[in-house]
Protein backbone atom coordinates (compact mmCIF):
# COMPACT_ATOMS: atom_id res chain seq x y z
CA UNK A 1 0.00 0.00 0.00
CA UNK A 2 1.31 3.43 -0.97
CA UNK A 3 1.46 5.87 1.93
CA UNK A 4 1.34 9.62 1.36
CA UNK A 5 3.55 12.07 3.26
CA UNK A 6 0.65 12.87 5.56
CA UNK A 7 0.19 9.14 6.32
CA UNK A 8 3.90 8.73 7.10
CA UNK A 9 3.93 11.74 9.42
CA UNK A 10 0.90 10.45 11.27
CA UNK A 11 2.38 6.96 11.43
CA UNK A 12 5.61 8.37 12.83
CA UNK A 13 3.72 9.90 15.71
CA UNK A 14 4.16 13.53 14.74
CA UNK A 15 0.49 14.13 15.51
CA UNK A 16 0.42 12.29 18.81
CA UNK A 17 0.02 8.76 20.12
CA UNK A 18 -3.70 8.37 19.32
CA UNK A 19 -3.15 9.23 15.65
CA UNK A 20 -0.12 6.92 15.45
CA UNK A 21 -2.05 4.07 17.09
CA UNK A 22 -4.94 4.64 14.65
CA UNK A 23 -2.62 4.69 11.63
CA UNK A 24 -0.90 1.46 12.67
CA UNK A 25 -4.25 -0.32 12.71
CA UNK A 26 -5.39 1.24 9.42
CA UNK A 27 -2.20 0.13 7.67
CA UNK A 28 -2.82 -3.46 8.83
CA UNK A 29 -6.44 -3.24 7.60
CA UNK A 30 -5.26 -1.87 4.25
CA UNK A 31 -2.75 -4.67 3.86
CA UNK A 32 -5.33 -7.32 4.81
CA UNK A 33 -7.65 -6.07 2.06
CA UNK A 34 -4.85 -5.28 -0.42
CA UNK A 35 -5.67 -1.56 -0.61
CA UNK A 36 -3.41 0.41 -2.94
CA UNK A 37 -3.56 3.69 -1.04
CA UNK A 38 -5.02 5.67 1.85
CA UNK A 39 -7.65 8.32 1.11
CA UNK A 40 -9.17 11.22 3.06
CA UNK A 41 -12.08 10.33 5.26
CA UNK A 42 -15.10 12.67 5.23
CA UNK A 43 -17.46 11.34 7.86
CA UNK A 44 -17.59 8.91 10.75
CA UNK A 45 -20.28 7.13 12.76
CA UNK A 46 -19.44 5.14 15.91
CA UNK A 47 -20.80 2.27 18.01
CA UNK A 48 -22.17 3.44 21.35
CA UNK A 49 -23.89 0.59 23.09
CA UNK A 50 -22.29 -0.93 26.13
CA UNK A 51 -24.28 -4.13 25.77
CA UNK A 52 -22.52 -4.98 22.51
CA UNK A 53 -19.04 -3.58 23.12
CA UNK A 54 -18.71 -4.64 26.75
CA UNK A 55 -15.90 -3.65 29.08
CA UNK A 56 -13.26 -4.04 26.36
CA UNK A 57 -15.02 -1.46 24.20
CA UNK A 58 -15.29 1.00 27.06
CA UNK A 59 -11.56 0.62 27.80
CA UNK A 60 -10.79 1.03 24.08
CA UNK A 61 -12.56 4.41 23.93
CA UNK A 62 -11.12 5.61 27.25
CA UNK A 63 -7.61 4.72 26.05
CA UNK A 64 -8.11 6.79 22.90
CA UNK A 65 -9.13 9.74 25.10
CA UNK A 66 -6.10 9.25 27.33
CA UNK A 67 -3.84 9.37 24.27
CA UNK A 68 -5.42 12.70 23.29
CA UNK A 69 -7.52 11.34 20.42
CA UNK A 70 -10.00 13.62 18.66
CA UNK A 71 -12.23 13.05 15.67
CA UNK A 72 -10.92 14.92 12.61
CA UNK A 73 -14.17 14.60 10.63
CA UNK A 74 -17.86 15.11 11.50
CA UNK A 75 -18.77 12.16 13.70
CA UNK A 76 -22.11 10.95 15.02
CA UNK A 77 -22.91 7.86 17.08
CA UNK A 78 -25.29 4.88 17.11
CA UNK A 79 -27.98 4.19 19.76
CA UNK A 80 -26.90 3.25 23.27
CA UNK A 81 -28.02 0.53 25.67
CA UNK A 82 -30.37 2.73 27.69
CA UNK A 83 -33.14 5.28 27.54
CA UNK A 84 -31.98 7.87 30.04
CA UNK A 85 -35.31 9.70 29.74
CA UNK A 86 -37.30 6.62 30.72
CA UNK A 87 -35.07 4.91 33.25
CA UNK A 88 -38.02 3.75 35.36
CA UNK A 89 -39.78 2.05 32.43
CA UNK A 90 -37.23 -0.75 32.06
CA UNK A 91 -35.24 -3.08 34.28
CA UNK A 92 -31.54 -2.38 33.74
CA UNK A 93 -28.78 -4.65 35.02
CA UNK A 94 -26.56 -3.30 37.78
CA UNK A 95 -23.72 -1.08 36.63
CA UNK A 96 -25.23 -0.33 33.22
CA UNK A 97 -26.00 3.39 33.68
CA UNK A 98 -22.52 4.11 35.01
CA UNK A 99 -20.76 2.36 32.16
CA UNK A 100 -23.01 3.79 29.45
CA UNK A 101 -22.38 7.24 30.93
CA UNK A 102 -18.61 6.69 30.75
CA UNK A 103 -18.95 5.92 27.02
CA UNK A 104 -20.82 9.23 26.54
CA UNK A 105 -18.10 11.01 28.52
CA UNK A 106 -15.39 9.53 26.28
CA UNK A 107 -17.38 10.58 23.19
CA UNK A 108 -17.59 14.16 24.48
CA UNK A 109 -13.80 14.21 24.84
CA UNK A 110 -13.33 12.77 21.35
CA UNK A 111 -15.61 15.42 19.87
CA UNK A 112 -18.42 13.07 18.83
CA UNK A 113 -21.88 14.58 18.27
CA UNK A 114 -24.04 12.74 20.83
CA UNK A 115 -26.87 11.88 18.45
CA UNK A 116 -27.33 8.22 19.54
CA UNK A 117 -29.17 7.54 16.32
CA UNK A 118 -29.06 4.72 13.78
CA UNK A 119 -30.29 7.13 11.08
CA UNK A 120 -27.49 9.75 10.89
CA UNK A 121 -28.13 9.97 7.14
CA UNK A 122 -31.55 11.50 7.86
CA UNK A 123 -30.28 13.88 10.52
CA UNK A 124 -26.91 15.20 11.50
CA UNK A 125 -24.49 13.38 9.22
CA UNK A 126 -25.72 13.62 5.66
CA UNK A 127 -22.90 12.69 3.28
CA UNK A 128 -22.53 13.91 -0.29
CA UNK A 129 -21.89 11.95 -3.48
CA UNK A 130 -18.44 10.35 -3.62
CA UNK A 131 -17.47 11.06 0.00
CA UNK A 132 -15.60 8.40 1.99
CA UNK A 133 -17.31 7.13 5.13
CA UNK A 134 -16.29 5.03 8.12
CA UNK A 135 -19.73 4.19 9.51
CA UNK A 136 -20.65 1.28 11.73
CA UNK A 137 -24.40 1.29 11.11
CA UNK A 138 -25.39 -1.02 8.25
CA UNK A 139 -28.78 0.49 7.43
CA UNK A 140 -27.28 4.00 7.41
CA UNK A 141 -24.26 3.01 5.31
CA UNK A 142 -26.62 1.16 2.99
CA UNK A 143 -28.68 4.30 2.48
CA UNK A 144 -25.58 6.51 2.12
CA UNK A 145 -24.18 4.25 -0.61
CA UNK A 146 -27.38 3.28 -2.38
CA UNK A 147 -29.41 6.49 -2.22
CA UNK A 148 -26.79 9.24 -1.80
CA UNK A 149 -23.85 7.75 -3.70
CA UNK A 150 -21.41 8.18 -0.81
CA UNK A 151 -18.79 5.44 -0.36
CA UNK A 152 -18.64 3.31 2.74
CA UNK A 153 -18.00 -0.30 3.68
CA UNK A 154 -19.90 -1.80 6.59
CA UNK A 155 -17.08 -0.51 8.77
CA UNK A 156 -16.27 -2.36 11.94
CA UNK A 157 -16.62 -0.76 15.36
CA UNK A 158 -12.84 -0.62 15.95
CA UNK A 159 -11.68 0.66 12.56
CA UNK A 160 -14.39 3.38 12.34
CA UNK A 161 -13.21 5.50 15.29
CA UNK A 162 -9.56 4.92 14.40
CA UNK A 163 -10.19 6.16 10.85
CA UNK A 164 -11.93 9.23 12.31
CA UNK A 165 -8.93 9.97 14.54
CA UNK A 166 -6.45 9.50 11.66
CA UNK A 167 -8.67 11.35 9.17
CA UNK A 168 -7.58 8.74 6.62
CA UNK A 169 -8.73 5.28 5.62
CA UNK A 170 -7.47 2.53 3.30
CA UNK A 171 -9.28 2.51 -0.04
CA UNK A 172 -10.80 -0.91 -0.63
CA UNK A 173 -14.23 -2.49 -1.10
CA UNK A 174 -16.95 0.07 -1.77
CA UNK A 175 -14.53 3.00 -1.38
CA UNK A 176 -13.11 1.91 -4.72
CA UNK A 177 -15.45 2.82 -7.63
CA UNK A 178 -14.28 -0.31 -9.49
CA UNK A 179 -16.24 -2.38 -6.97
CA UNK A 180 -19.41 -0.34 -7.30
CA UNK A 181 -20.92 -2.33 -10.18
CA UNK A 182 -23.75 -4.84 -10.19
CA UNK A 183 -23.09 -8.56 -9.73
CA UNK A 184 -26.65 -9.93 -9.81
CA UNK A 185 -30.10 -8.74 -10.87
CA UNK A 186 -33.33 -8.50 -8.88
CA UNK A 187 -36.54 -7.80 -10.82
CA UNK A 188 -39.66 -6.78 -8.93
CA UNK A 189 -42.99 -7.84 -10.38
CA UNK A 190 -44.93 -4.62 -11.24
CA UNK A 191 -48.06 -6.24 -9.78
CA UNK A 192 -46.23 -6.67 -6.48
CA UNK A 193 -44.80 -3.15 -6.55
CA UNK A 194 -48.31 -1.72 -6.87
CA UNK A 195 -49.34 -3.49 -3.68
CA UNK A 196 -46.29 -2.61 -1.56
CA UNK A 197 -46.24 0.07 1.12
CA UNK A 198 -48.76 2.77 1.86
CA UNK A 199 -49.97 3.96 5.26
CA UNK A 200 -49.49 1.45 8.04
CA UNK A 201 -47.49 -0.91 5.85
CA UNK A 202 -44.43 0.75 4.39
CA UNK A 203 -41.87 -0.30 6.99
CA UNK A 204 -42.77 -4.01 7.16
CA UNK A 205 -43.27 -4.35 3.39
CA UNK A 206 -40.05 -2.67 2.36
CA UNK A 207 -37.93 -4.27 5.08
CA UNK A 208 -39.23 -7.66 3.90
CA UNK A 209 -38.40 -6.69 0.31
CA UNK A 210 -34.91 -5.66 1.44
CA UNK A 211 -34.47 -9.06 3.06
CA UNK A 212 -35.49 -10.87 -0.12
CA UNK A 213 -32.96 -8.81 -2.11
CA UNK A 214 -30.24 -9.21 0.52
CA UNK A 215 -30.67 -12.96 1.03
CA UNK A 216 -30.35 -13.50 -2.71
CA UNK A 217 -27.42 -11.12 -3.29
CA UNK A 218 -25.61 -12.03 -0.02
CA UNK A 219 -22.03 -10.75 -0.63
CA UNK A 220 -22.67 -9.48 -4.17
CA UNK A 221 -23.86 -6.03 -5.30
CA UNK A 222 -27.50 -6.39 -6.41
CA UNK A 223 -29.03 -4.30 -9.18
CA UNK A 224 -32.72 -3.81 -8.43
CA UNK A 225 -35.22 -2.93 -11.15
CA UNK A 226 -38.94 -2.29 -10.82
CA UNK A 227 -39.07 0.14 -7.89
CA UNK A 228 -41.58 2.90 -8.41
CA UNK A 229 -40.34 6.41 -9.24
CA UNK A 230 -40.16 8.89 -6.36
CA UNK A 231 -39.75 6.31 -3.62
CA UNK A 232 -40.39 7.83 -0.18
CA UNK A 233 -37.51 8.39 2.24
CA UNK A 234 -39.10 5.98 4.74
CA UNK A 235 -39.47 3.29 2.08
CA UNK A 236 -35.82 3.58 1.09
CA UNK A 237 -34.77 3.59 4.74
CA UNK A 238 -36.68 0.32 5.17
CA UNK A 239 -35.16 -1.38 2.08
CA UNK A 240 -31.64 -0.42 3.24
CA UNK A 241 -32.27 -2.03 6.64
CA UNK A 242 -31.29 -5.26 4.85
CA UNK A 243 -27.64 -4.16 4.96
CA UNK A 244 -26.59 -6.22 7.96
CA UNK A 245 -29.13 -8.94 8.68
CA UNK A 246 -29.31 -10.08 5.02
CA UNK A 247 -26.95 -8.30 2.63
CA UNK A 248 -23.30 -8.65 3.65
CA UNK A 249 -22.28 -5.43 1.87
CA UNK A 250 -23.80 -1.96 1.85
CA UNK A 251 -24.54 -1.14 -1.77
CA UNK A 252 -27.76 -1.87 -3.62
CA UNK A 253 -27.90 -0.31 -7.06
CA UNK A 254 -31.55 0.72 -7.14
CA UNK A 255 -32.29 1.62 -10.75
CA UNK A 256 -33.97 5.03 -10.92
CA UNK A 257 -32.95 5.84 -7.33
CA UNK A 258 -29.19 5.35 -6.92
CA UNK A 259 -27.13 8.12 -8.54
CA UNK A 260 -24.88 5.42 -10.02
CA UNK A 261 -27.83 3.50 -11.50
CA UNK A 262 -29.83 5.76 -13.80
CA UNK A 263 -30.25 2.73 -16.05
CA UNK A 264 -29.78 -0.99 -15.55
CA UNK A 265 -26.88 -0.91 -18.03
CA UNK A 266 -25.10 1.83 -16.09
CA UNK A 267 -25.53 -0.19 -12.89
CA UNK A 268 -23.69 -3.09 -14.51
CA UNK A 269 -20.94 -0.81 -15.78
CA UNK A 270 -21.91 -0.89 -19.46
CA UNK A 271 -24.18 -3.77 -20.31
CA UNK A 272 -26.11 -6.44 -18.46
CA UNK A 273 -24.07 -9.66 -18.54
CA UNK A 274 -25.97 -12.29 -20.52
CA UNK A 275 -25.59 -14.98 -17.87
CA UNK A 276 -26.32 -12.69 -14.90
CA UNK A 277 -27.85 -14.43 -11.88
CA UNK A 278 -31.47 -13.20 -11.65
CA UNK A 279 -34.23 -13.19 -9.05
CA UNK A 280 -37.88 -12.46 -9.79
CA UNK A 281 -39.77 -11.11 -6.77
CA UNK A 282 -43.53 -11.52 -6.77
CA UNK A 283 -46.40 -11.65 -4.27
CA UNK A 284 -45.59 -15.28 -3.38
CA UNK A 285 -42.05 -14.29 -2.42
CA UNK A 286 -43.47 -11.55 -0.19
CA UNK A 287 -45.89 -13.97 1.48
CA UNK A 288 -43.04 -16.42 2.15
CA UNK A 289 -40.92 -13.61 3.60
CA UNK A 290 -43.64 -12.60 6.07
CA UNK A 291 -44.17 -16.24 7.00
CA UNK A 292 -40.45 -16.84 7.55
CA UNK A 293 -40.16 -13.79 9.79
CA UNK A 294 -42.64 -15.11 12.35
CA UNK A 295 -40.97 -17.77 14.47
CA UNK A 296 -43.95 -18.48 16.67
CA UNK A 297 -47.62 -19.05 15.91
CA UNK A 298 -48.74 -17.71 19.29
CA UNK A 299 -51.44 -15.08 19.04
CA UNK A 300 -51.05 -13.52 22.49
CA UNK A 301 -48.30 -10.91 22.49
CA UNK A 302 -46.42 -9.41 25.44
CA UNK A 303 -44.50 -6.69 23.63
CA UNK A 304 -45.09 -4.74 20.43
CA UNK A 305 -42.16 -2.81 19.00
CA UNK A 306 -41.65 -0.50 16.08
CA UNK A 307 -38.81 1.77 15.05
CA UNK A 308 -35.88 -0.25 13.73
CA UNK A 309 -34.33 1.64 12.04
CA UNK A 310 -35.49 4.57 14.17
CA UNK A 311 -38.76 6.20 13.26
CA UNK A 312 -38.88 9.51 11.45
CA UNK A 313 -41.22 12.22 12.72
CA UNK A 314 -43.72 11.30 9.98
CA UNK A 315 -43.72 7.67 11.06
CA UNK A 316 -44.34 8.75 14.65
CA UNK A 317 -47.33 10.76 13.40
CA UNK A 318 -48.53 7.61 11.68
CA UNK A 319 -48.33 5.63 14.95
CA UNK A 320 -50.30 8.31 16.83
CA UNK A 321 -52.96 8.32 14.12
CA UNK A 322 -53.26 4.53 14.07
CA UNK A 323 -53.61 4.47 17.86
CA UNK A 324 -56.31 7.15 17.70
CA UNK A 325 -58.36 7.14 20.91
CA UNK A 326 -57.61 3.49 21.67
CA UNK A 327 -55.53 2.32 24.57
CA UNK A 328 -52.93 -0.43 24.80
CA UNK A 329 -54.20 -3.68 26.33
CA UNK A 330 -53.31 -4.23 30.02
CA UNK A 331 -50.13 -6.26 30.39
CA UNK A 332 -48.90 -5.45 26.86
CA UNK A 333 -45.96 -3.10 26.26
CA UNK A 334 -46.00 -1.05 23.07
CA UNK A 335 -42.61 0.55 22.46
CA UNK A 336 -41.72 2.90 19.61
CA UNK A 337 -38.08 3.86 19.06
CA UNK A 338 -36.58 7.09 17.82
CA UNK A 339 -33.56 9.31 18.44
CA UNK A 340 -33.34 12.25 20.85
CA UNK A 341 -33.63 14.98 18.25
CA UNK A 342 -36.77 13.49 16.72
CA UNK A 343 -38.09 12.84 20.24
CA UNK A 344 -37.82 16.55 21.06
CA UNK A 345 -39.70 17.33 17.86
CA UNK A 346 -42.36 14.77 18.74
CA UNK A 347 -42.76 16.36 22.18
CA UNK A 348 -43.21 19.81 20.63
CA UNK A 349 -45.82 18.39 18.29
CA UNK A 350 -47.74 16.72 21.12
CA UNK A 351 -47.11 13.27 19.67
CA UNK A 352 -45.19 11.92 22.66
CA UNK A 353 -48.14 12.76 24.90
CA UNK A 354 -50.70 11.30 22.53
CA UNK A 355 -48.72 8.07 22.41
CA UNK A 356 -48.29 8.06 26.20
CA UNK A 357 -52.03 8.68 26.76
CA UNK A 358 -52.71 5.54 24.74
CA UNK A 359 -50.45 3.64 27.11
CA UNK A 360 -47.55 3.27 24.63
CA UNK A 361 -44.00 4.59 25.02
CA UNK A 362 -41.88 6.62 22.61
CA UNK A 363 -38.30 5.92 23.69
CA UNK A 364 -35.14 7.79 22.89
CA UNK A 365 -31.56 6.72 22.10
CA UNK A 366 -32.06 2.96 22.32
CA UNK A 367 -33.84 -0.14 20.99
CA UNK A 368 -34.28 -3.86 21.75
CA UNK A 369 -31.03 -4.70 19.98
CA UNK A 370 -28.92 -2.34 22.11
CA UNK A 371 -30.73 -3.04 25.37
CA UNK A 372 -29.81 -6.12 27.44
CA UNK A 373 -32.84 -7.96 26.13
CA UNK A 374 -32.32 -11.33 27.84
CA UNK A 375 -32.26 -9.49 31.14
CA UNK A 376 -35.50 -7.68 30.31
CA UNK A 377 -37.56 -10.28 28.45
CA UNK A 378 -37.37 -14.04 28.96
CA UNK A 379 -37.60 -16.68 26.21
CA UNK A 380 -41.37 -17.00 26.78
CA UNK A 381 -41.93 -13.40 25.70
CA UNK A 382 -43.72 -12.96 22.38
CA UNK A 383 -42.89 -9.76 20.48
CA UNK A 384 -44.81 -8.43 17.50
CA UNK A 385 -42.80 -6.12 15.25
CA UNK A 386 -42.80 -4.54 11.82
CA UNK A 387 -39.00 -4.62 11.60
CA UNK A 388 -37.22 -7.44 9.80
CA UNK A 389 -33.87 -6.15 11.02
CA UNK A 390 -34.76 -6.30 14.70
CA UNK A 391 -36.48 -9.64 14.26
CA UNK A 392 -33.40 -11.18 12.64
CA UNK A 393 -30.82 -9.70 15.01
CA UNK A 394 -32.58 -10.62 18.21
CA UNK A 395 -33.59 -14.26 18.01
CA UNK A 396 -32.25 -17.60 19.10
CA UNK A 397 -31.98 -19.66 22.27
CA UNK A 398 -32.92 -17.77 25.42
CA UNK A 399 -34.43 -14.89 23.50
CA UNK A 400 -38.03 -13.87 22.80
CA UNK A 401 -40.04 -15.24 19.85
CA UNK A 402 -41.50 -13.01 17.17
CA UNK A 403 -44.57 -12.28 15.08
CA UNK A 404 -43.96 -10.20 11.98
CA UNK A 405 -46.54 -7.88 10.54
CA UNK A 406 -47.39 -4.42 9.32
CA UNK A 407 -47.54 -1.39 11.61
CA UNK A 408 -51.34 -1.52 11.41
CA UNK A 409 -51.32 -5.17 12.53
CA UNK A 410 -48.81 -4.33 15.28
CA UNK A 411 -50.88 -1.41 16.60
CA UNK A 412 -53.97 -3.65 16.61
CA UNK A 413 -51.99 -6.29 18.52
CA UNK A 414 -51.03 -3.65 21.09
CA UNK A 415 -54.67 -2.58 21.49
CA UNK A 416 -56.18 -6.08 21.67
CA UNK A 417 -53.26 -8.15 22.97
CA UNK A 418 -53.78 -10.48 19.97
CA UNK A 419 -51.67 -10.55 16.84
CA UNK A 420 -54.04 -11.20 13.94
CA UNK A 421 -52.28 -10.53 10.67
CA UNK A 422 -54.31 -9.08 7.82
CA UNK A 423 -51.58 -8.52 5.25
CA UNK A 424 -49.56 -11.04 3.20
CA UNK A 425 -51.03 -13.93 5.13
Amino acid sequence: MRLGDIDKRRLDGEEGPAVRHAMEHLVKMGEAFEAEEMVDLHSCHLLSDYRTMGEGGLQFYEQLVEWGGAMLVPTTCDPMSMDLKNMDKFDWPEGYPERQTRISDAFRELGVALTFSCTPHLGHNVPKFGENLAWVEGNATGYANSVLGARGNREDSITAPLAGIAGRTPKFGLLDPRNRVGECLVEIDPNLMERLGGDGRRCADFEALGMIIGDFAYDRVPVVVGLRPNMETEELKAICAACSPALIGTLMLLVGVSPEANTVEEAFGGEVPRDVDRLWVDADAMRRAYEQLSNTAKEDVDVVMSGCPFKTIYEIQEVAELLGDNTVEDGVKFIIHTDRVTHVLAEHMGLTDRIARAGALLTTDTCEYCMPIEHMYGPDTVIAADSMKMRRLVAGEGKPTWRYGTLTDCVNAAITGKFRPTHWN
Partner: protein
Amino acid sequence: MSETITLHGHSVSKGVGEGEALVCDKPLSFIAVGISNEEGIVRIDRHPLNGQSIVGKVLIYDTDIFSTGGALSMYTKKTIFNTAPAAVIWRKAHNIGAGGTIYAGIPSMDRIEEGLPWDLIGTGDWVKVDSEQGIVEVTKKS
Protein backbone atom coordinates in the same frame (compact mmCIF):
# COMPACT_ATOMS: atom_id res chain seq x y z
CA MET B 1 -0.90 -41.80 13.05
CA SER B 2 -3.44 -39.17 12.13
CA GLU B 3 -3.30 -37.68 8.69
CA THR B 4 -1.86 -34.14 8.49
CA ILE B 5 -2.45 -31.79 5.58
CA THR B 6 -1.01 -28.35 4.85
CA LEU B 7 -3.18 -25.61 3.32
CA HIS B 8 -2.23 -22.21 2.00
CA GLY B 9 -4.15 -18.97 2.21
CA HIS B 10 -4.23 -15.23 2.55
CA SER B 11 -3.23 -13.65 5.85
CA VAL B 12 -5.63 -11.13 7.43
CA SER B 13 -4.37 -10.84 11.03
CA LYS B 14 -0.80 -11.98 11.53
CA GLY B 15 0.14 -14.47 14.24
CA VAL B 16 0.15 -18.13 15.17
CA GLY B 17 -2.67 -19.94 16.94
CA GLU B 18 -3.90 -23.50 17.28
CA GLY B 19 -6.85 -25.41 18.60
CA GLU B 20 -9.70 -27.76 17.80
CA ALA B 21 -11.66 -26.74 14.74
CA LEU B 22 -15.29 -25.60 15.00
CA VAL B 23 -16.62 -25.48 11.46
CA CYS B 24 -19.67 -24.22 9.59
CA ASP B 25 -20.32 -22.96 6.07
CA LYS B 26 -22.66 -20.15 7.16
CA PRO B 27 -22.05 -16.50 8.10
CA LEU B 28 -21.61 -15.77 11.81
CA SER B 29 -21.59 -12.75 14.13
CA PHE B 30 -19.55 -12.10 17.26
CA ILE B 31 -22.08 -9.60 18.65
CA ALA B 32 -22.93 -10.11 22.30
CA VAL B 33 -26.58 -10.85 21.52
CA GLY B 34 -25.49 -13.77 19.27
CA ILE B 35 -22.40 -15.06 21.13
CA SER B 36 -22.36 -13.81 24.72
CA ASN B 37 -19.14 -12.06 25.66
CA GLU B 38 -19.06 -13.75 29.08
CA GLU B 39 -19.43 -17.39 27.90
CA GLY B 40 -18.62 -17.54 24.18
CA ILE B 41 -21.61 -19.79 23.40
CA VAL B 42 -23.42 -19.38 20.05
CA ARG B 43 -27.10 -18.49 20.39
CA ILE B 44 -28.33 -17.33 16.98
CA ASP B 45 -31.69 -18.19 15.44
CA ARG B 46 -31.43 -21.38 13.32
CA HIS B 47 -27.61 -21.28 13.28
CA PRO B 48 -25.74 -24.59 12.77
CA LEU B 49 -23.29 -23.76 15.61
CA ASN B 50 -26.03 -23.11 18.18
CA GLY B 51 -25.04 -24.19 21.66
CA GLN B 52 -21.36 -24.61 20.73
CA SER B 53 -18.53 -22.84 22.53
CA ILE B 54 -16.07 -20.84 20.43
CA VAL B 55 -13.61 -20.48 23.31
CA GLY B 56 -10.08 -21.45 22.26
CA LYS B 57 -11.30 -22.98 18.99
CA VAL B 58 -10.05 -22.44 15.48
CA LEU B 59 -13.31 -21.04 14.17
CA ILE B 60 -14.22 -21.53 10.54
CA TYR B 61 -17.19 -19.78 8.93
CA ASP B 62 -18.17 -18.06 5.71
CA THR B 63 -17.95 -14.35 6.58
CA ASP B 64 -19.33 -11.84 9.09
CA ILE B 65 -22.98 -10.89 9.21
CA PHE B 66 -25.09 -8.70 11.54
CA SER B 67 -23.78 -5.74 13.50
CA THR B 68 -20.40 -4.12 13.00
CA GLY B 69 -20.30 -4.13 16.81
CA GLY B 70 -18.96 -7.67 16.36
CA ALA B 71 -15.42 -6.27 16.22
CA LEU B 72 -15.58 -4.70 19.70
CA SER B 73 -17.49 -7.74 21.00
CA MET B 74 -14.58 -9.87 19.79
CA TYR B 75 -12.09 -7.53 21.50
CA THR B 76 -14.02 -7.79 24.78
CA LYS B 77 -14.14 -11.58 24.47
CA LYS B 78 -10.37 -11.63 24.03
CA THR B 79 -9.26 -9.02 26.57
CA ILE B 80 -11.87 -9.25 29.35
CA PHE B 81 -13.42 -12.72 29.41
CA ASN B 82 -10.87 -14.91 27.62
CA THR B 83 -13.69 -16.33 25.51
CA ALA B 84 -12.21 -15.60 22.06
CA PRO B 85 -11.27 -18.22 19.48
CA ALA B 86 -7.57 -19.18 19.06
CA ALA B 87 -7.71 -18.33 15.35
CA VAL B 88 -10.27 -17.70 12.60
CA ILE B 89 -10.52 -18.83 8.97
CA TRP B 90 -13.11 -17.40 6.55
CA ARG B 91 -13.99 -18.10 2.96
CA LYS B 92 -13.84 -14.34 2.59
CA ALA B 93 -12.88 -11.81 5.26
CA HIS B 94 -15.28 -8.99 6.15
CA ASN B 95 -14.25 -5.66 7.74
CA ILE B 96 -15.90 -6.78 10.98
CA GLY B 97 -13.94 -10.00 11.47
CA ALA B 98 -10.75 -8.50 10.04
CA GLY B 99 -10.85 -5.37 12.23
CA GLY B 100 -11.74 -7.42 15.30
CA THR B 101 -9.05 -10.09 14.88
CA ILE B 102 -6.34 -7.59 13.90
CA TYR B 103 -6.99 -5.35 16.89
CA ALA B 104 -7.46 -8.21 19.35
CA GLY B 105 -4.35 -10.02 18.10
CA ILE B 106 -6.19 -13.17 16.98
CA PRO B 107 -4.54 -14.83 13.94
CA SER B 108 -6.87 -14.99 10.95
CA MET B 109 -6.82 -15.98 7.29
CA ASP B 110 -9.11 -16.24 4.30
CA ARG B 111 -9.11 -17.48 0.69
CA ILE B 112 -7.66 -20.96 1.23
CA GLU B 113 -6.11 -21.92 -2.11
CA GLU B 114 -6.92 -25.63 -1.91
CA GLY B 115 -10.68 -25.09 -1.71
CA LEU B 116 -13.50 -24.08 0.62
CA PRO B 117 -12.32 -24.31 4.22
CA TRP B 118 -15.30 -26.42 5.37
CA ASP B 119 -14.58 -28.99 2.66
CA LEU B 120 -10.99 -29.38 3.92
CA ILE B 121 -11.37 -29.02 7.69
CA GLY B 122 -13.91 -30.76 9.92
CA THR B 123 -15.13 -29.96 13.42
CA GLY B 124 -12.80 -31.69 15.87
CA ASP B 125 -9.71 -31.61 13.62
CA TRP B 126 -6.64 -30.06 15.27
CA VAL B 127 -5.69 -26.93 13.34
CA LYS B 128 -2.61 -24.71 13.52
CA VAL B 129 -2.98 -21.34 11.80
CA ASP B 130 0.30 -19.60 10.96
CA SER B 131 -0.80 -16.42 9.24
CA GLU B 132 2.78 -15.06 9.34
CA GLN B 133 3.58 -17.71 6.74
CA GLY B 134 0.08 -18.05 5.25
CA ILE B 135 -0.06 -21.73 6.21
CA VAL B 136 -2.70 -23.87 7.93
CA GLU B 137 -1.76 -27.33 9.26
CA VAL B 138 -4.68 -29.68 9.77
CA THR B 139 -4.40 -32.91 11.75
CA LYS B 140 -7.52 -34.87 10.96
CA LYS B 141 -9.51 -36.24 13.86
CA SER B 142 -8.69 -39.95 14.05
